[in-house]
């Protein structure tokens, strides 16, 4: 098998995958009678037309990339963390608690302190499924989902009760949200007239840190070994359960930090629906980015574009924003299938022999002519 054929085959499969994904999405769009072409164009280009659009995409990229990088750490160690949604909520709660308790601390103390609290909260929430998986063989897929629902209830309870904005209490409009958090917690918005904040640089820094941690330290090597082949890793003297738990805690900490940064940079108070599906989108981003920080950062930008673009389609072409969830689901299904097709040497051989016999036939026909 020639190398040229191999690359050609891979590119061909990937192009086919993209077409399949877009066609599947088109089926749903046709079902609701939308203009398929226009919808895709709006989603993919409209947000990039002006300064506000681009910064709004970057704004969504921040939590997406932080969460996806955390999910990557877990995935590389052999755990699929679908609990980022809950871990993010716990992160938001921890940060809010710190900001409510110590509103007068100066920013350079309060911000790291509050983000650290978010990380610890998320890590604690990630510890539970990690521990259950490592020690009791409980499927992390189920435990993390359940913890999402539990965290969501805890979140509403605290926002309706202990953390409720005193103004809401007297006005009685009943919106469950915390008060405006201390101004000292605000992350600077560095472009006038937009909402983009310094959390963007934190996200990029975290991506670099994780790259070094996973690929340039022996800790990272052991963690990836535990995920690549737990039997071999155990044979090599790696304490696999320990790495599972640590990976899950890092993953949770990242989701928690994403929550902290989201409220410190964007909302500036804990509101309902702050997680808004970022936890699940993070899984898609991580997969799409090839489970590597260098891929995840652009992937997060792309999905930030999709999410913001889908918001616009609602106004421009009347396609509900839920469409982005449909596309994400399709993308996951297509990516996992594509990976298996690309890594299947038998299929590749089959395709090659088909093509070869087809060529022979063609040349044989030419000779007879």
């Amino acid at each position: 098998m020639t190398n040229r054929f191999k690359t050609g085959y891979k590119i061909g499969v990937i192009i086919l995958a993209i077409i399949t994904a877009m066609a599947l999405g088109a089926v749903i769009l046709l079902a609701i009678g939308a203009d398929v072409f226009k919808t895709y164009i709006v989603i993919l280009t409209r947000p990039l037309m002006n300064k506000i659009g681009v910064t709004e995409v970057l704004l969504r990229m921040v939590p997406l990339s932080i969460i996806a990088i955390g999910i990557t750490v877990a995935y590389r160690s052999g755990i699929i963390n679908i609990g980022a949604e809950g871990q993010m909520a716990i992160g938001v709660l921890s940060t809010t608690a710190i900001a409510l308790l110590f509103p007068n601390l100066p920013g350079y103390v309060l911000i790291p302190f509050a983000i650290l609290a978010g990380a610890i909260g998320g890590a604690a929430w990630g510890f539970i499924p990690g521990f259950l998986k490592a020690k009791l063989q409980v499927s992390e897929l189920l435990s993390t989902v359940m913890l999402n629902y539990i965290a969501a209830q805890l979140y509403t309870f605290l926002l309706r009760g202990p953390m409720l904005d005193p103004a809401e209490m007297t006005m009685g409009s009943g919106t469950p949200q915390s008060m405006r958090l201390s101004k000292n917690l605000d992350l600077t918005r560095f472009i006038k007239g937009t909402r983009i904040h310094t959390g963007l640089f934190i996200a990029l820094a975290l991506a670099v840190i994780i790259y070094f941690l996973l690929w340039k330290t022996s800790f990272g090597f052991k963690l990836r070994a535990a995920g690549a082949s737990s039997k071999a890793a155990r044979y090599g003297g790696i304490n696999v359960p320990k790495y599972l738990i640590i990976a899950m805690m890092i993953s949770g900490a990242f989701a928690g930090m994403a929550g902290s940064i989201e409220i410190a940079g964007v909302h500036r108070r804990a509101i309902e629906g702050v997680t808004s599906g970022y936890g699940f989108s993070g899984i898609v981003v991580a997969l799409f980015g090839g489970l590597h920080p260098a891929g995840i950062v652009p992937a997060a930008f792309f999905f930030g574009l999709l999410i913001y673009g889908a918001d616009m389609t609602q106004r421009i072409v009347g396609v509900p924003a839920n469409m982005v969830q449909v596309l994400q689901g399709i993308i996951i299904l297509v990516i996992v299938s594509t990976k298996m097709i690309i890594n299947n040497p038998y299929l590749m051989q089959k395709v090659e022999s088909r093509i070869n016999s087809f060529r022979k036939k063609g040349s044989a026909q030419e000779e007879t002519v």
Partner: protein
Amino acid sequence: MTFVINILSLGIPFSVALLIASLGEMFNQRAGIFNLGCEGMMAMGAFLGMLVPYLVGQGSYVPGYYNYLGLLLALAVGALLGLVFGVVVVTFRAPQGIAGIGMQMFGVGTAGTLFRHFIGGTQSVPGINVAPIPLLSDIPVLGVLFFNHNPLVYVAFLMVPSAWYLLFKTPWGLKVRAVGTHPRAADSIGIDVNKVRFQALMVGGALAGLAGAYLSLCQAKMFSDGIIAGRGFIAVALVYFGHWHPVKIMGGALLFTLAQALQLAIQGLGIDFPYEFLVMLPYVMVIIVLAFSRKSQITGPAALGKPFNREIRA
């Protein structure tokens, strides 16, 4: 006493969606497929189930058979999604956990998108009403508990012995169990492993769709984005809890929903307790149950979650 009867008679219909979905999931897992997309399939079933009676009715009278048309549509879409999932995890042998998440997002997202387009807001449908069984429903206590429900409740509980019979007493059931336990051995005696897995996925998907339609047509009598509320995931957990056996799964489904009914009853009594903690209860229970049923996982289908490739020796 009446309080207890209230809880029980409330809890039994609540358990139906879980029961149907987890019986379907049981067939999937017995055939070796871990279908985490159950939640998405339920969402699609829930939406399509109520769409037909809603479009026909639009406020006016809806003849009862349109509800059943909705149920059929839900069964069909569930089977179709089972087929799609099969292409991904059986044909392409993709990792099932992550593919299930994709299916879940696709199902929930599609149901939400279509809902916004075709219905838009909170709209209720007349749905399927309670049909007391004559004579039997007049028995004191037992009548209220067991014979005063909507037709689907009876069907669901009849499904338990049927599923048992299908799984343990028919050739097809044996094939399902064979491909989930030792696909290579099944393959060597001429069973088409992938075909049986596809069939199991379609049965499981159809039941998931039906479970969703039960929620929208019989229980809530409307559709909303969060209507499934993790029941698809709980159904998956219940299969573990019920040791892949229909009767035990039924027990699990009843236990879980009694907790939920208790929560509603407590709220009804006006006891001042943050209801968020009561809503949490079933999810906490799932985690606790999974943590303490470690042994059962050893007795589960041996090939659960493992794709079968007849071209590779393993």
